[in-house]
């Protein structure tokens, strides 16, 4: 990565030049999926062996949402050592913001045919729309909230935690507590988010039927685009000097302070950007699965996301996305074939990765490639790259 942030002219190079080999492979795969999946769904007749059924389109779209969540998590965990066990909360908040928009789109087509109030409010005998539901009939407003609500929570949480220098296990526990508190809150009927059942029975998004084949394909493409944008934002951040400071904080936090960096501000910025990305992932997830309920806040979801990143390789971005897709593919398969062993399989996977693959799949591949290159003159930038992906954060900063 040396020199990636600056070229010989001392200028910040174009974004495209910041993408490395595995980044290009990643972008190519996502782009190919964005073209092929809808094509094979819409243009290939149902009987054909090449036809991709609509439910598979939605399933793949869900995987891409998880990939974006994993990318967001990798930005703070892989590069800054902030092990968030509460990223599912940001994902769910983005999901609820989108869900509220979709609820308002139902309009008078609900069971109770109330033009203003969603069914669950009529059922609870509510007479008017709570103030925080206002504005969600507008897509731009809802889209803004998808970014703002998780971003604001991350800002407040991060500012309090990082300023008080909460780190390590304590921080992880606090993030778990945060998502658990939200889980309990969203379960309550009087919160006005549909309680236990959450938000569902969606009809339209931007005037198109959410269930329609074409809408599903469009949502898939939108998710692929969001994933690519998320990757580009994260890649820009980690290759800039800002990213180098993040890694410095990860490896030797107090040393970074003694150089005059305000560690808490750096952490808050990363945490907020990451939370917003997770929010977008959640917002794209909801129309594709057709429901959002409080279980999305469950602490286990956030822990699962950490496992995806660990499996793919923390501190590599691409690895995080890959891990999310692979693990969820396994989950879909196993929960179908042998539902009772899924949790054990996940636990086992985590143990195996921690013990034998500390740098995850991508770390392993990078290492393999380096070993092959050892014979020829060693590519320095690759070596530096591997260092960035170092899983074991060096205990540092001790005076």
């Amino acid at each position, binding site marked *: 990565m040396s020199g990636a942030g*600056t070229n010989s002219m001392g200028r*910040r190079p174009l974004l495209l030049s910041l993408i490395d080999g595995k980044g290009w492979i990643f972008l190519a795969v996502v782009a190919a999926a964005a073209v092929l999946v809808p094509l094979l769904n819409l243009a290939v007749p149902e009987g054909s062996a090449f036809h991709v059924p609509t439910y598979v389109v939605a399933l793949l779209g869900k995987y891409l949402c998880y990939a974006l969540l994993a990318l967001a998590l990798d930005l703070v965990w892989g590069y800054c050592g902030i092990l968030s066990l509460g990223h599912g909360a940001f994902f769910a908040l983005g999901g609820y913001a989108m869900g509220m928009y979709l609820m308002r789109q139902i309009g008078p087509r609900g069971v109770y045919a109330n033009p203003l109030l969603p069914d669950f409010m009529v059922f609870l005998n509510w007479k008017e729309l709570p103030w925080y539901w206002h504005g969600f009939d507008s897509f731009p407003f809802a889209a803004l909230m998808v970014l703002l609500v998780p971003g604001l929570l991350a800002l407040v949480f991060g500012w309090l935690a990082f300023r008080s220098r909460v780190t390590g296990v304590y921080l992880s526990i606090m993030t778990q507590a945060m998502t658990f508190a939200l889980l309990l809150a969203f379960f309550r009927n009087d919160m006005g988010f549909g309680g236990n059942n959450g938000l569902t029975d969606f009809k339209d998004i931007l005037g198109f039927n959410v269930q329609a084949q074409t809408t599903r394909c469009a949502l898939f493409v939108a998710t692929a685009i969001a994933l690519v944008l998320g990757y580009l934002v994260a890649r820009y951040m980690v290759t800039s000097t800002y990213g180098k400071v993040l*890694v410095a904080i990860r490896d030797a936090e107090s040393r*970074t302070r003694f150089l*005059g960096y305000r560690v808490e501000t750096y952490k808050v910025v990363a945490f907020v950007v990451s939370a917003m990305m997770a929010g977008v992932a959640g917002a794209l997830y909801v129309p594709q699965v057709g429901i959002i309920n409080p279980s999305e806040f469950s602490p286990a979801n956030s822990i699962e996301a950490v496992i995806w990143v660990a499996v793919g390789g923390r501190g590599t971005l691409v690895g995080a996305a890959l891990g999310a897709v692979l693990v969820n593919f396994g989950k879909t398969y196993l929960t179908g074939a042998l539902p009772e062993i899924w949790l054990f399989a996940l636990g086992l996977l985590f143990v195996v990765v921690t013990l034998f693959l500390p740098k995850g799949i991508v770390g392993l591949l990078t290492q393999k490639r380096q070993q092959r290159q050892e014979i020829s003159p060693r590519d320095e930038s690759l070596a*530096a790259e591997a260092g960035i992906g*170092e899983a074991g954060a*060096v205990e540092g900063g001790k*005076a």
Partner: protein
Amino acid sequence: MIPDRGLTNTVLYLDGVSKTFDGFRAINNLALTLEHGEMRAIIGPNGAGKTTMMDIITGKTKPDEGDVYFDGTTDLTTLDEASIANLGIGRKFQKPTVFESHTVADNIRLALKDERGPWSALFGARNRIAPERIEHILEIVRLIDHHERLAADLSHGQKQWLEIGMLLAQDPKLLLVDEPVAGMTDAETADTARLLREIARDHSVVVVEHDMAFVRDLDCKVTVLHEGSVLAEGTIDAVSSNERVIEVYLGR
């Protein structure tokens, strides 16, 4: 007595400083002043409070009582580490602490004096640091041939030098250097003394060290710390013939 801090020519002024850890007085009514451009060696047995003194100056540890002033007027006890660093106080740790997963050049890049905010690091000046500035520092600390290596791969002595290079890159007014030659060969130690003397020409420097030959090489005033306060102060010859100092060192 209130000292005339604004007028006295001190870069560092400590008076009546005390710090207790769990009932143990690590720093006990410590007084020390350093003039602009001065180099000072601090010696003292293990546990004398040398590192704790640096912790207090750099904001890592808050003293229980006492005055700590920088440049005659700035009260350091109210500031945090980052603010103190940005005032122009740089520090090398006792255990060499460099950013192991960054290259040698990037370690210097991060240390170089410039804006420190995230905005600048994302989009601004921090990304436009001229390579010559990095190379210049690396030449001084003789790591220019290693500039693309990972800091983790350096030898112990090279890490010490890299950290000194990071200090130089910060271009502080005052450098606090904690045991810079621990783990170095005699030749490296002599080089380090030469380097520090050179740095001291236009910086104020405080060096903590056990190695007497090295301290003699530094050729500057020596302060002996013992049980958290100053036991003796003067030339190396004067303090090493001081009876109380001999007692403290031999009496252990």
